[in-house]
């Protein structure tokens, strides 16, 4: 579990490179600092009160304040979450999930958000969106958990939650300047591939670690995670080949991430063969979202957070309701394809609740911050790039 925690921690810097490579040269440091500052801020927030709100023993809207500052969160196991690992280990493992979830949203408003506004929005979002949703799905006494919603490693809590917030933020902050004129090109695709590799690597901790033990279930999660990522990366490359004449690196990397997203909620409940189906389908759905739906509606979800994470997450959550099997995990449930249509409806409800709640609260947070300090940078700053204007730094020198 210590290793898994470290693996998930590495995903946020991985995400920083994944996103950083896709933005312009003048905005890469902005992406990196946003990811790294979240690693700092949310780590502190989690210790101070975030863990208590998300996983505390309260049975209402969130977990309550009993575990503020880790009061009562000791080195003995807390049986309701895991009987075999120290409570603080569970806490710090979950911390890394709390860190990467808001970081996912960064890709939607890339290249145009003021840093100060970013910090405030993210603290509020972690507190009022992530922590409650996390409590409902994973916390003891959480109502979606009680209802039987399956989310092995964060399809709803992480990906749908962040993905829908990303879509809304992209719409509210409006398009980047020149977005309609031409595609804004990635400045360093090797960075993006490096980030993808770190994400894939870290995802083993994310999914297999969610078994909370080094056991058969963890092995199953590990195997299906790799299988789904492989199937989805391959599928995207084939789709590229058919529709755009050539397979592309960015497409293959995007597909792999989409596959990892989709298998996340299902990792502890499905077989490797189901993982191939989940991975192959997710690339088709995400490709449609990114290549057709986005241009049709004209929103500027800069790095396709909604198209990959939300769509992939929704498919994954629903696919869990289709492919889940008690043969894989006796503590789980059977899905539609294994004779239990009710599970599919429960999954659907969990998706809808997450989408609706995240939309409403993200909207309120965004509008509040926008009224107080304006979220978007002035046009002049956007032209010059956020690295220079928000951070007084340049990523690349030209002379020496």
């Amino acid at each position, binding site marked *: 579990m210590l290793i898994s925690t470290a693996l998930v921690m590495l995903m946020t810097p991985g995400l920083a490179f994944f996103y950083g490579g896709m933005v312009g040269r*003048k905005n890469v440091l902005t992406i990196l600092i946003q990811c790294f500052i979240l690693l700092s801020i949310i780590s502190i927030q989690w210790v101070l009160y975030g863990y208590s709100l998300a996983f505390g023993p309260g049975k209402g809207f969130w977990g309550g304040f009993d575990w503020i500052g880790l009061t009562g969160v000791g080195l003995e196991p807390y049986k309701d979450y895991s009987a075999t690992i120290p409570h603080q280990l569970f806490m710090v493992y979950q911390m890394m999930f709390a860190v990467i979830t808001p970081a996912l949203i960064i890709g939607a408003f890339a290249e145009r958000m003021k840093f100060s506004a970013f910090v405030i929005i993210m603290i509020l979002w972690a507190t009022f969106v992530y922590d409650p949703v996390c409590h409902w799905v994973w916390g003891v006494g959480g109502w979606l958990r009680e209802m039987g919603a399956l989310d092995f490693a964060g399809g709803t809590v992480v990906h749908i939650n962040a993905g829908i917030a990303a879509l809304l933020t992209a719409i509210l902050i409006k398009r980047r*300047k*020149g977005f309609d*004129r*031409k595609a804004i090109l990635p400045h360093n695709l090797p960075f993006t591939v490096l980030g993808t590799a770190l994400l894939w690597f870290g995802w083993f901790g994310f999914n297999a670690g969610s078994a909370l033990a080094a056991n058969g279930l963890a092995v199953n999660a590990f195997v299906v995670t790799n299988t789904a990522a492989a199937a989805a990366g391959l599928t995207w490359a084939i789709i590229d080949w058919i529709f755009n004449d050539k397979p592309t690196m960015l497409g293959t990397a995007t597909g792999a991430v989409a596959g990892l997203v989709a298998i996340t909620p299902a990792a502890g409940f499905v077989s490797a063969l189901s993982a191939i189906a989940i991975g192959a389908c997710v690339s088709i759905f995400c490709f449609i979202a990114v290549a057709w739906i986005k241009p049709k509606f004209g929103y500027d979800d800069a790095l396709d957070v909604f198209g990959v994470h939300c769509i992939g997450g929704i498919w994954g959550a629903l696919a869990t309701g289709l492919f889940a099997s008690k043969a894989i995990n006796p503590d789980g449930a059977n899905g539609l394809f294994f004779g239990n249509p009710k599970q599919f409806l429960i999954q659907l409800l969990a998706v809808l609740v997450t989408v609706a709640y995240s939309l409403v609260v993200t909207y309120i947070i965004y509008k509040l911050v926008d009224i107080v300090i304006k979220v978007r940078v002035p046009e*002049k700053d956007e*032209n*010059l790039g956020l690295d*220079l*204007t928000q951070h*007084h*730094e*340049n990523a690349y020198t*030209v*002379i020496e």
Partner: protein
Amino acid sequence: MKLIIAIIKPDRLESVKEELYKADVNLMTVNEVLGHGRQMGVTEVYRGAREMGNLLRKIRLEIAVNENFVEPTIKAIIKGAQTGEVGDGKIFVLDLAECIRIRTEERGGPAIG
């Protein structure tokens, strides 16, 4: 024959290209350069060390034209690059002594294109 050199903001390149195409000017050499005019660049800070007046990234366009294209080219560049903000750039017009197309060895006006 004239050589027109324009220094513009990087984010204006697309619109300048569009205006040039509209004016039937399809030949250009584009460079990325550093420089600053009266706005004196920006200050950068690295571990507390302040770098004053750092040079800004600019785009340098070079376009060789025949006499009848000089004004349309200048107008197109202005139309595409002008924002009214400081740092919009400059256009220089130089006399061009000779132009040779390497493939055919044509010289002078016809070689320009």
